[in-house]
């Protein structure tokens, strides 16, 4: 499959499927696709530091949850007409809550990245997990925001520039738009000197230093950017579910994001979208077959690892190059 089609196809699926569902009178299916978009966005941000920068974070759920709480806390204060802790009024408009989620995500990710990047390999995985667990328990301790129960936004989701979103499709395409924007920006960054330094450091950190680069500021910067984007995804998730809870920051969410990235194929960015569509789609589909669906999904994941190296995008690339007899060199990126 040519790389352009490989990259575009999952976006097309996510654009067309909910429209078809709505036209067919199955409006209730739209949130299923919106969830895919939101998870794809978070996974793509993870893939950016993982595939390009070689940083395997098992703590990205922390940023997801923080982004969700930016939305939940702001809208709780609006609904209850109480001032926020710093005396500011609450907020319940996406034009405020999304940039705010991004900023808070970046501000938390900066020190996390700085501490974590003292280590490498499996130690990096575990220290990001540790930091995320601290955020998780911190959120459980937020008793004025529901503690473990979280915040139920029964008063409704955020507005956009003061206007309520008319329906589910509107929210879906807003999320999809942000996903496409993130894809374009991150793709550009990969090709820019910023991305090259990251990629170089992943392959051979000593050589990058010898060339006169200090990779660490780049790596911390990439980690922070990734954290900010995941926080935006969390803010969108809060608007899809109209609910936030510490559960968004549980380590299993970090694990799920990793699984999506690996399943889709690391380093390609569009792999994250493939991974989200296929994993959440499989869950949804297998549930229809049996209530014991994990007993099918588990071995399926094992088989995919064993027989589809490089994840789904890797598989598609190989399929394409075999059919075209190597006429298309998919390894360009």
């Amino acid at each position, binding site marked *: 499959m040519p790389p352009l089609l490989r990259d575009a196809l999952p976006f097309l699926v996510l654009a067309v499927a909910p429209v078809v569902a709505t036209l067919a009178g199955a409006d209730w299916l739209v949130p299923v696709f919106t969830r895919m978009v939101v998870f794809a966005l978070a996974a793509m941000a993870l893939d950016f530091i993982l595939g390009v920068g070689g940083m395997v974070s098992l703590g990205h759920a922390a940023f997801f949850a923080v982004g969700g709480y930016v939305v939940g806390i702001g809208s709780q204060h609006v609904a209850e007409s109480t001032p926020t802790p710093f005396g500011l009024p609450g907020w319940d408009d996406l034009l405020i809550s999304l940039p705010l989620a991004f900023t808070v995500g970046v501000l938390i990710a900066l020190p996390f990245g700085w501490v974590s990047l003292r*280590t490498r390999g499996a130690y990096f995985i*575990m220290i990001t997990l540790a930091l995320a667990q601290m955020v998780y328990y911190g959120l459980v*301790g937020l008793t004025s925001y529901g503690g473990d129960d979280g915040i139920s936004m029964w008063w409704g989701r955020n507005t956009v520039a003061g206007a309520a979103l008319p329906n589910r499709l509107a929210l879906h395409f807003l999320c999809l738009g942000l996903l496409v924007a993130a894809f374009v920006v991150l793709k550009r960054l990969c090709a820019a000197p910023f991305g090259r330094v990251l990629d170089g450091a992943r392959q051979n950190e000593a050589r990058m230093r010898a060339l006169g680069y200090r990779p660490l500021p780049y790596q911390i910067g990439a980690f922070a950017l990734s954290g900010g984007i995941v926080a935006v995804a969390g803010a969108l998730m809060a608007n899809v579910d109209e609910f936030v809870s510490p559960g968004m920051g549980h380590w299993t969410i970090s694990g799920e994001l990793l699984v999506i990235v690996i399943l889709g194929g690391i380093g390609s960015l569009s792999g994250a979208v493939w991974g989200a569509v296929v994993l959440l789609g499989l869950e949804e589909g297998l549930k229809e077959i049996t209530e014991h669906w*994990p007993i099918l999904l*588990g071995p399926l994941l094992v088989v995919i690892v064993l027989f589809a190296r490089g994840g789904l995008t890797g598989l598609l690339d190989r399929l394409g190059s075999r059919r075209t007899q190597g006429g298309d060199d998919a390894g360009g990126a």
Partner: protein
Amino acid sequence: MLLFLEQLLNGVQLSVTLLLMASGLTLVFGIMNLLNLAHGSLFMVGAYVAAWTTGVSGSWLLGLVAGAAAAFVTGIVIELVVMRRLYARDHLDQVLATFGLILFFNELVRLLWGIRPMRLDVPEALGGFVEIVPGAPYPLYRLAVIAAGAAVMLALAWLVQGTRVGMRIRAGSVDREMIGALGVDIGRLYTLVFALGALLAGLAGVLAGPFLAIQSGMGEPILILAFVVVVIGGIGSLKGAVAGSLLVGITDTLGRVYLPKITDAGPALSSMLIFLVMAVVLAVFPTGLYGRKS
């Protein structure tokens, strides 16, 4: 003071369970370079089979043997079917595949034994108390767990340090190609190491069974703690696993008891404490206390 000693003992007892888990994890990680998330599933298999066997036969000892044996056999099977194909892969592929195994095993026990939690009681012979110091009776079973764990670890140390197989294992952890060149059957050696780790995990599951609710997913919380131990100690180091598990077990126990007495935020702080310890240890020693410098 008396109470403090008792709490220390409780900390050591938690450490022993963690050590049994962590030693297998760190061996597999250090020697085969395999990041095995499904290690907690072996803990669960041990506990389930022991509870079921004890329930059917009425013999706790038989349950102990059956639980450990089941984990051992499960270890051999998943090594032969899945794990050996993963040694050459990077950690990410291992994460995805062993995550798949977790899903499978958690659902399998639910299919086999239902969603009700199972029960494993303390063996009758160990149901009593010991007054280590007058006025503070300590459960005999918990002391027995400490003793059993220590004995198993000594046996493991002897196996690794004092036997031919152990020599090969140690050689394998230093230089994989070399021992292959020396004519050692690496495949068999790896299967053995993996199954040994599985056996220890299963044993931990059985010994901890009487303190726990035996239910699907019980392996994951302890897996996270065991990983913390491995990483604090340094990957591949048994000495590190001992130090790490004592540090985690005692810190966790004392933190839970004493932090809430100092501050109102104590309960939340004590939940974070071991992760805080890990972050600090890694910030100072980026490859753990006894880890090899990269």
